């Protein structure tokens, strides 16, 4: 896309991601997002700075957190007059929040902003049942104590059962893993293909930590200094795990599916003018971001939307998959990554689904998730976009001029958001 002006990614900051119910079990979404913001503020000397906007969100959010991002900004070291907005597009929340800020900068509405996200499965909101809510409303409107007691007497034990959020799709009743298991089978994805993705993810992320790649992208929090889920794994170990989705014959395990996680991430985005005035070197430019959905209720693969979104986005930028130096496919499940790669390599999919002459293309494995992804790092839903954008921007900068990177993130509701970044030097 030809943006009216360049949108630069200057850097990012996240807290290490934790496994559900572990390192961050005592803290809230607001605590984590504030910690990630304050780390970014410290790194870029933004104390007391009035920014154009801060966009972030959480997929799982308490009702009282309706202004989660604004509350976090007030609690941070930024100028308290910095505005903020809460956004949500399931697992694409972080990337879409970044898009919101990027677009404002591109149009000249603001000079600098922060995009990001946070999620906690440890502090997930628990709701009361609809039946209890109705009874309480009626009791509230009662005219006498006697009437109120009569209404309350109609309560049944089942009405008191709290309901926790679930990862199930409302219209199909199937959760993410069950949906992916159907797709995994349809695309004939093997256990070994999936375990290989998981193995590489841990290996690559570990290597990135060891060379200090995250030193200027992360601040420790609550005693954690690296992602809690990251481990030294082997193909044998991964191969020994029992399937968790797709029945006893299934190929999806806890090792090749992302764990429930807690964490937060932020990305600093600015116009080139602002970056120059403040002495910051842009790492990458955001060239385009695009979202589309698939009709999974009619049988399309729930997590396949990025397989459509990326070709559409690259086409309108006059680019192909071969032009991509780095490809970041969010590892919701290892099988999701394999499915998207297979779809792009598939002649029939290219012709029938994408309207191309043949297959869209293939991704050399040495360009795929080269510093690991969600299987190793963990996946606090809304925090994943910021993690990937900040890492990819730095990878592009390190790689030098004229390099391109593609980001693909699948999301609930059959959605997918993709992004195109170009190195800024």
């Amino acid at each position, binding site marked *: 896309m030809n943006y009216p002006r360049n949108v630069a990614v200057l850097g990012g900051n996240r807290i290490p991601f934790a496994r559900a119910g572990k390192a961050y079990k*005592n*803290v809230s979404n*607001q*605590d984590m997002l504030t*910690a990630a913001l304050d780390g970014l503020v410290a790194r870029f000397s933004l104390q007391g700075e009035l920014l154009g906007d801060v966009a972030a969100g959480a997929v799982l959010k308490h009702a009282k957190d309706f202004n989660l991002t604004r509350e976090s900004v007030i*609690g941070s070291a930024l100028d308290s007059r910095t505005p903020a907005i809460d956004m949500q597009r399931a697992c694409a929340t972080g990337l879409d929040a970044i898009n919101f800020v990027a677009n404002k900068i591109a149009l000249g509405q603001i000079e600098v902003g922060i995009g990001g996200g946070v999620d906690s499965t440890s502090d997930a909101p628990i709701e009361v049942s609809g039946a209890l809510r109705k009874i309480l409303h009626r009791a509230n409107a009662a005219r006498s104590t006697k009437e109120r007691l009569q209404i309350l007497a109609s309560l049944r034990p089942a009405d008191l059962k709290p309901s926790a959020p679930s990862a199930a799709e409302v219209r199909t009743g199937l959760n993410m893993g069950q949906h992916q298991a159907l797709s995994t089978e349809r695309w004939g994805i093997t256990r070994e293909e999936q375990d290989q993705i998981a193995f590489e993810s841990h290996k690559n992320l570990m290597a990135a930590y060891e060379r200090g790649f995250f030193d200027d992208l992360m601040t420790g929090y609550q005693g954690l200094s690296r992602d809690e889920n990251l481990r030294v794994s082997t193909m044998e170990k991964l191969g020994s795990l029992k399937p968790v989705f797709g029945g006893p014959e299934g190929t999806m395990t806890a090792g090749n599916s992302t764990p429930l996680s807690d964490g937060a991430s932020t990305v600093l985005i600015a116009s080139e003018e602002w970056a120059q005035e403040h002495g910051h070197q842009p790492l990458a430019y955001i060239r385009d971001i695009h979202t589309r959905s698939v009709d999974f209720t009619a049988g399309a693969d729930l997590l396949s939307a990025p397989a459509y979104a990326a070709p559409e986005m690259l086409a309108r930028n006059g680019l192909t998959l071969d032009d991509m130096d780095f490809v970041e496919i969010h590892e919701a499940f290892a099988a999701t990554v394999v499915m998207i790669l297979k779809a792009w390599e598939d002649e029939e999919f290219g012709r029938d689904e994408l309207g191309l002459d043949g297959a869209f293309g293939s991704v050399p494995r040495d360009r795929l998730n080269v510093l690991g992804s969600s299987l190793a790092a963990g996946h606090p839903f809304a925090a994943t976009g910021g993690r990937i954008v900040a890492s990819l921007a730095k990878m592009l900068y390190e790689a030098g001029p004229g390099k391109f990177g593609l980001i693909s993130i699948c999301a609930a509701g059959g959605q997918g958001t993709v992004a195109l970044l170009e190195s800024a030097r």
Partner: protein
Amino acid sequence: MRIEHERLPSFGETFTAAAMQAVRVKAGRGASSLPGTEARATLSADPEKHADFVHLVGDTVTDHLHPGYVHALGFPLTMSLLVQKDFPLPLLGMLHLTNRVTQSRGIELGETMELIASVENPRAHYAGTLIDSIVRVMVDGEEVMVDTAGYLVRGSDLGGPRPERPDREEFEPGRATAVWSLSGDTGRRYAKVSGDGNPIHLSKVTAKPFGFDKPIVHGMYSASRAYSATGKGNDGPRDWFVEFEAPISLPGKVQFATTMVDGKAEYVGWRAARGEKPARRHFTGWVE
């Protein structure tokens, strides 16, 4: 003398001792000095309890301890000194009038702290004797925090001849920046996160024998919440002061205002005027 605590004494233990002491000590008659005992304990904050405290007093959980929580950690040590047999003043009925915390740096969650409590500096007050309960917080041999609580022991002459009661200055409330709606269980909730289970804070029934028709909120709840509201954070050198005036009955509404004056956040909490009843100030203080 020095008392070494293997673990922090529970509130129940010290409170029972205080009740026994109340029978024994009558406002320090005859005594002319404090015994000069120290109580020490080495500990680190429990992350879960700290997070619960921080959330209750309206702050964000960072990797640094809320100074109000450090005060709560030191409180049992102070209690253990006040209930010693040779301590000449009765603990029951002591009034927490002021609190000052000076920090040379933020204390990180997980750092091992040595807490050293002492009771010092008896001096005259128009209503009795003022004493300072001091908790020094050491990390690796370096003093990082000093928490000084000023208590009034009514009726005691230990501090010397009592001066005249000064004229009370008129209180003209300004405009509130926030209103705290405190529910009836605020004292119980703060007792849970701070460990201070003094009956005057818990319920109508338990407050009654101590002369309160309704439970009153912990002074350090108000102070800690005010501290949080200033947004100064817990990460650096800090100086925090509070002076308590009229207690806050529960349930209750507190008008609160904080203003920034040259980088110093000043705050005040009060009860709004109602009909004939004038506004009453609950507390004032500052953070810088």
